[in-house]
């Protein structure tokens, strides 16, 4: 574990069941792709912690290397990388995001 960002990332994704590395904050996303994931998580009522990579250059670069994934946003559930905007969107549309979160013990709204 040579990258000092990795330790911070690991402690964050272990301490918080759902973490979204994003540009901007959940209230003020500064990128359309990040905004879309925030919208989906809010829609299904899943509580999450947003980490604004624009405020932290070390995390911004480190997270790409950590997940071996070149873009942001990145969603983590119980320490595991789930995907970026496209994957979260596809899983949501297929109903898989909701069922995966439930299985992982994350509270989500039941769709009426």
């Amino acid at each position, binding site marked *: 574990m040579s990258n000092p960002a990795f330790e911070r990332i690991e402690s964050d994704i272990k301490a918080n069941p759902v973490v979204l590395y994003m*540009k901007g904050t959940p209230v003020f996303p*500064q*990128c359309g*792709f990040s905004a879309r994931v925030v919208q989906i998580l809010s829609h299904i009522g899943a509580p999450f912690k947003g980490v604004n990579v*624009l405020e932290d250059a070390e995390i911004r670069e480190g997270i790409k290397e950590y997940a*071996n*994934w*070149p*873009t942001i946003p990145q969603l983590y559930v119980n320490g595991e*990388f789930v*995907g*970026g*905007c*496209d*994957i979260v969107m*596809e*899983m949501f549309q297929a109903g898989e995001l909701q069922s995966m979160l439930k299985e992982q013990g994350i509270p989500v709204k039941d769709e009426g």
Partner: protein
Amino acid sequence: MQTRADRIVAALTRCFPPAEIAVVDDSHKHAHHAGARAEGETHYSVQVVSPAFAGQSRIARSRAAHAALAAEFATGLHALSLKLLTPEEAARG
């Protein structure tokens, strides 16, 4: 002169044969945003339909596409929206 879109098509064709590929340059929609460059060629939407994706998870498919396009990420490709389907999934719509 080859555009980045041309290079994306060429790289994906090489990595996922036989593939049907559609690339859209969305850079103009993101002009003046973070990651945009005056010369454009930063934001793309790509759809690839290939039997090479059969049996692969969403993350594995995306990672394979990212790897195929590593040279583009290294030279200013900033955002890449991916739709990666097998021919069967594409036929289902």
